[in-house]
């Protein structure tokens, strides 16, 4: 007892030391580029774990069951994260930082891919780990590519489309100017003309990037530095600003996220709406929908043709810390095969990444928007592929929001946006 009393503070210290050791390095991340971990276990096979957000459409379990039935020694365990994208991101960061060998394959949002790749957490898909991307939509491959190396396999895609009222506008507009000229129709019917998602959140980055890219501008140049000082970029943002000022974009659109804008269109309050494909079936079947038979879809309008949609979707990445990378790669190939991509499309209405599926008549019969979506994704531009995405998207949101509200000029907004992006990358 006497001894143990003396030991008590010692024990306390050692507990503390343990805790310190466990938490140590939580702050800084240092990575040996391309070294060690990325070269290990390339040919090893065995059980692996697949990590992704909540499986809302119940497609992953049947798919993994099917794989497991055929691969007795290479079983895949499904680890489901929450529905919140932020939590999924933070969960992946923590586990990669801890070099968790049980996070073999992970579903990575297109906007996180560059960040994770630059941290050195993703296995480069080259040489013996290479996959065939020739049949995939080029924009999706671009979203998974960092510094000319493919770090993930496109798994599901997404692109914006223009929903319009065919009872009021028989032919959809091909260009932005054409669409603006049709706003007189909206005025005559006393409804709003055009809306997207303009609340200050990720959706505004998507919409602002579409405006800038559609007008021929770019946000980041090839060197990763901002390239917003061009007349094209200015024209793109100016389109949104002018439309908001003229009332062609109704003033409440500045509070719209995806669902608010869907509700407005669904209740007949909008002539044109930019949104994702997921709302198509809702507009058709939702009890509250007043436009069930009167809406149609078209590619986003651009400068002289289809506009440049921002790209949504997820990529599948293999962790550099995985112990069974050969199995992981096989599983990635299995998920991106035509058979499974068709299964995703029919069961969960996830947009396939394989070009050929968009022309499959059986699939089109089920998902009538596929041909339009194909045009959208073919013309799509990924949101800036940069390891500093959180800072870049913040810079875009804050300044585009201020410009649309009229708090600052378009020139000033683009200058500030460029400045904020530059300082983020230091």
């Amino acid at each position, binding site marked *: 007892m006497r001894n143990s009393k003396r030991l008590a503070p010692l024990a306390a210290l050692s*507990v503390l030391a343990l805790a*310190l050791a466990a938490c140590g390095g939580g*702050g800084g991340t240092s990575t040996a*580029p391309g070294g060690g971990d990325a070269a290990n276990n390339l040919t090893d096979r065995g059980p692996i774990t697949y990590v992704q957000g909540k499986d809302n459409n119940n497609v992953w379990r049947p798919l993994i069951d099917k794989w497991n039935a055929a691969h007795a020694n290479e079983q895949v365990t499904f680890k489901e994260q929450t529905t919140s994208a932020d939590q999924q991101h933070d969960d992946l960061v923590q586990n990669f930082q801890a070099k968790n060998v049980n996070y073999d394959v992970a579903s990575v949002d297109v906007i996180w891919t560059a960040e994770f790749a630059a941290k050195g957490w993703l296995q480069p898909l080259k040489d013996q780990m290479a996959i065939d991307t020739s049949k995939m939509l080029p924009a999706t491959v671009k979203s998974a590519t960092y510094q000319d190396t493919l770090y993930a396999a496109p798994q599901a895609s997404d692109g914006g489309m223009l929903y319009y009222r065919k009872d009021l506008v028989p032919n959809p507009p091909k260009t932005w100017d054409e669409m603006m000229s049709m706003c007189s129709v909206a005025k005559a019917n006393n409804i709003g003309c055009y809306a997207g998602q303009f609340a200050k959140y990720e959706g505004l980055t998507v919409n602002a990037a579409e405006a800038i890219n559609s007008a021929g501008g770019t946000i980041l140049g090839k060197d990763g530095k901002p390239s917003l000082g061009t007349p094209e970029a200015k024209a793109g943002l100016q389109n949104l600003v002018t439309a908001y000022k003229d009332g062609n974009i109704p003033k*409440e659109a500045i509070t719209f996220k995806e669902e608010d804008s869907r509700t407005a269109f669904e209740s007949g309050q909008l002539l044109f709406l930019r949104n994702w494909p997921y709302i198509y079936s809702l507009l058709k079947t939702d009890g509250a929908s007043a436009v069930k038979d009167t809406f149609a879809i078209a590619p986003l309008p651009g400068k002289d043709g289809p506009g440049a949609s921002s790209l949504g979707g997820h990529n599948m990445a293999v962790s550099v810390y995985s112990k069974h990378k050969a199995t992981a790669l096989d599983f990635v190939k299995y998920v991106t095969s035509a058979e499974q991509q068709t299964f995703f499309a029919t069961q969960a209405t996830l947009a396939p990444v394989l070009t050929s599926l968009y022309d499959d008549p059986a699939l089109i019969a089920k998902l009538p928007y596929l041909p339009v979506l194909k045009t959208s994704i073919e013309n799509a531009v990924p949101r800036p592929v940069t390891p500093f995405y959180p*800072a870049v998207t*913040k810079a875009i949101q*804050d300044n585009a929001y201020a410009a649309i509200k009229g708090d600052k000029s378009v020139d000033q907004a683009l200058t500030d946006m460029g400045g904020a992006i*530059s300082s983020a990358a230091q």
Partner: protein
Amino acid sequence: MSTDATELPVETAASPKQRRPLPRGESADRKATTQGRWAATLIVPAMVVLAVVIVYPVINAIIMSFQHDSGLDPATGFYVAGGFAGVANYVHWLAQQCNTSGGGTVGCAPGTLGSQFWSATGTTFFFAVVTVVLETVLGFWMAVIMARVFRGRSALRAAVLVPWAIPTAVTAKLWVFIFAFEGIANKIFGTSILWTGSNGPARFAIIIADVWKTTPFMALLILAGLQIIPAEVYEAAKVDGASAWQRFTQITLPLVKPALMVAVLFRALDALRMYDLPAIMTGGANGTTTLSVLVVNQIRQGFNSAAALSTITFIIIFIVAFIFVRFLGANAVASSTPSEKGKTK
């Protein structure tokens, strides 16, 4: 030794004074020493837990705040550790200086988090002052009503507690629906205000939501203070011919002040770290970015800089608490209880 260990706690709990003579050879001094050691042994686990969950994270955050965030090696495109930063992270926030490619610093461009520090500080204090004042006034009023004896008093007390019982995140979502453009607020008032889309209304909406949610908390703490005021004091005042207003200002206010100051202190500290309401209702748009919202945004961009910002936030809140305790007499830490203090006055 083992007998000591089993007997001592029982003994001390049962009788603080000596009940039986001390065993031969054991002086009172020795006894006290043993007891002290025993107490220390019992306290150690609690201290260890505190050290692990409070002291360590705070110290680690402060250490982190003096490190640069990991940056990109331009040659490889991979992240490298940032290294020692001195006070650069603090300068970044307080002076709103951002790095340039040349290695120097320049005023942060709008759209960076660094450019928002002082505006976020202002917003935080604005929310704290306005909500705490409103909640104190309304809470006092509710407490006075609840303190009266009348039929259905318990029902009223339970009803008042409902907003406090709802999680803040749920509250925020409810108010988002109410303040949506097609929402109830605009329908009832026949207006078409962009509640979450313009500066004034966005702040107003958040204040309303916060007051709705936390006034019950104030009311309860003040009610507790009211209930320890003895009825005789009021009777004596009545006999002396004091009016209702005089009784309120001369008796109720001074006697409830200790409890009131503690309540105000708690609320002020809470309001200074407001996060959920602005994060969910506006995402920080339109002049509603508080310091906590800024910290969380920064975490996604770099831990070390976020550590510096949260240390600054910590110091700001600490100063406010210090002012409250030192100069305004909010007695939340000293040993005398509000009731004792109230009686002696």
